[in-house]
């Protein structure tokens, strides 16, 4: 049995090479950051870093699901901002009222994702153009709710989820871990989660194998909306307000795609993991922090992010060496 376990382990490493690479890259960068930070690794430093990084990590997780089905969700950033604005209006009052508000915000996020999925599946429109359009609608709703920045949030919940657990562990990381445990892992091991990989790998073969293609896509987009709204909630808890900011919506959408790629997920679908996207998001965020501790002008940030992205994409290009029919390179 131990021989079997060893070979299972070998395959596990091969299947998760992308995730592991991103994790190692993050570990190296974060060590570099902490060892050059004047305060070192204090709970406060870790919490600040985590609060920022978890926002992008959640949006990147959301992006991963449609990408796995060989789609794309350009509305994740807009759902993120829209749920931020909604949360700043309804997650208020007592703790009990706040919790009800949280549930409502999550439901709205899932609904937004479901609408995307429904248009893609039943309307047979391309994901990219569908979510570009619905994203504009969601941003419009955000603007309607918060024409100017403002609002409030239930502060007990906010402080709990952005502070530290036992005074050490950043609570945001606990939230992220909970999302992984409650959403991602069950999804990854469900029939519809498997179906999403199958659809992304080869939709025709999936259909021929009797895979529930449509339901898999619907669920992928719906969960993307849900995860983006978790991000929107966390943003509200960090800022105590809502803001319909177009730059935030746009940059989170684009960075989520970058994080997905750095995390080893193929934009051609069928291959990858939301865990990789989390590390991808952490890598992108740490670049910013590194520029800060090394006193480099923040203007260099896009350049460094671009270089990291290019390096990540190049790693995926090795498969080209194995292709026998040149036409296969072009699909």
């Amino acid at each position: 049995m131990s021989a079997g376990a060893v070979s299972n382990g070998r395959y596990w490493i091969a299947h998760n090479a992308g995730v592991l690479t991103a994790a190692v890259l993050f570990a190296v960068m974060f060590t570099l950051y902490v060892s050059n930070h004047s305060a070192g690794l204090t709970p406060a430093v870790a919490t600040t870093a985590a609060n920022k990084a978890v926002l992008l990590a959640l949006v990147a997780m959301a992006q991963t699901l449609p990408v796995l089905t060989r789609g794309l969700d350009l509305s994740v950033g807009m759902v993120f901002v829209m749920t931020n604005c909604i949360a700043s209006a309804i997650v208020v009052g007592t703790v009990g009222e706040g919790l009800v508000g949280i549930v409502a915000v999550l439901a709205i996020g899932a609904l937004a994702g479901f609408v995307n999925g429904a248009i893609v599946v039943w309307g047979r429109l391309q994901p990219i153009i569908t979510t570009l359009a619905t994203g504009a609608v969601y941003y419009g709703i955000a603007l309607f709710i918060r024409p100017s920045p403002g609002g409030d949030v239930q502060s007990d919940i906010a402080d709990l989820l952005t502070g530290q657990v036992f005074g050490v562990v950043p609570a945001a990381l606990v939230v992220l871990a909970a999302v992984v445990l409650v959403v991602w892992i069950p999804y990854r091991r469900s029939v519809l989660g498997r179906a999403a990989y199958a659809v992304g790998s080869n939709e025709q073969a999936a259909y021929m194998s009797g895979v529930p293609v449509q339901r898999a896509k619907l669920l992928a987009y719906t969960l993307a909306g849900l995860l983006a709204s978790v991000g929107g909630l966390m943003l509200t808890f960090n800022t105590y307000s809502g803001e319909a900011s177009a730059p935030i919506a746009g940059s989170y959408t684009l960075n989520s795609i970058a994080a997905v790629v750095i995390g080893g997920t193929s934009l051609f679908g069928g291959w990858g993991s939301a865990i990789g996207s989390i590390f991808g998001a952490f890598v992108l965020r740490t670049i910013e922090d590194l520029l800060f501790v090394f006193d480099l002008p923040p203007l260099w940030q896009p350049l460094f992010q671009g270089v990291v992205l290019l390096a990540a994409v190049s790693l995926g290009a090795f498969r080209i060496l194995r292709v026998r029919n040149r036409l296969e390179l072009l699909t």
Partner: protein
Amino acid sequence: MPARRIPFLLAWVDALSDRKPYLELKRISKRYGGVAALTEVDFSVYPGEIQAVLGENGAGKSTLIKIASGVTDPSDGEVLIEGRPVRFRNPTEAMRAGVVCVFQELSLLPELTVADNLSIVDPPKWGGMIDAGAQRARARALLKRVGCEDVHPLELVRDLPLSRRQMVEIAKALGRDPRILILDEATSALTADDVERVYAIIRELKASGVGILYVSHRMREIEALADTATVFRNGRRIETFNKGERSVDAIIEMMIGREVTHQYPDKPAPKPDAPVALKAANLTWGREIQDVSFELKRGEIVGLGGLDGQGQRELLLGLFGVLKGMSGSVAVDGKPIALNGPRKAMHAPLPMALIPEDRKTEGLMLPMSVRDNMTLAALPRLLGRFGIDADKESAAVNDMVERLRVKTPDLDAPVSALSGGNQQKVVLAKWLMTAPGIILLNDPTRGIDVGTKQEIYRLMRELANQGAAILFYSTDYAELIGCCDRVLVVYDGRIRRELAGAALTERNLLQSALNIDAMEKAA
């Protein structure tokens, strides 16, 4: 006897012989547009029988399988399972009813593991989630059953060689507990050992009462395995007979006999001293092309015959430089050339052109205009001082439209607006603009109307008479006989026979396509 008693009588006879078909097709017809793929076919498969399905390319075998396995709906007629009418809306419903198909185009998901693929529809679960351990154990058991203990359940399908994938595909079908198992050319990619293993599995299944539908082009396999055989021709069922009731000759006779509907241009007298345009020596690429050598002379139309998928497509792609790692040598006009991509092939001493198989994916940019599509490959010839010379371009396009009689509302109309035949003419025009000396044609008349087909035949002969060398792959034997000066018959990646002159008959073509000469020699 009153007519209404007959069903009762039939039921009684069935009960007596204890043979009720599990799967039955009644008066099934299928039309694609105006073309009939199947016409009023009655067909049944009994539990515990191995039935071979025979027929030429386009005889209706694949349509039959698609209907039985729920991939397409029949236009007319009824499908019955154990006597009850059913209507499969998708492959899943057919599988639930016990009809499982091993498809020729593999239905495996390359980015998923073998274990995932084997349990893709009904994975073992634990607490609502997929139980990875149980799934691995199930995969190991299924792999063992097909003799693939060397495949690890966690390997990705994309990392497996083709022959292993095919075995995994068979294991996947077995995992669905079929009552009727359809094998469509399931052994085409297998090694000899695996084929034996598959035979053993098939016999095992037969013993346990599974009905097997076996589509194969290999007469030897059919003789070894089948209890009964059904021959199809032109979308009709010709005859069903038991093992040993018909000779191979008689079977071939049944498969031939398509009506001749086309007129072909006259063939010129053979010119044995014409210069050689292309000489290929010992071309080999994986299992698909094996040690292929031949010559192509100027002014000659050489056909590639044989059953579908014996390596003809790969050979054309290989000559055009699309395949990586093909060994052997190719000389054009006496000078050796490197097979290194279409651009190289287009600039060979005699420019080469390939009319691809699927015009929609490899031939045309559908949303682009007729003009842009036609000039795409020949743009360097149309350059003026300031980029593309619009006058030159228009003149060239008009010339082609006239020469090939392309029916288009406007040169700037998107090519997607044209009929299939006219689209194919645009593809031809695109390559004729490059003034090719060697033209490779990959089944150029598939799915286009009769009138356009005849224009293409005429055009081919005209080009040959002007000195072009043409290599012409077609799945239509009548077309090969009508158009070609010689035909090379390909079987299993090798050229098995060359037919020319009086020997170029449908009977000879089919016989060599089925590799019967070699079988007789071996026997």
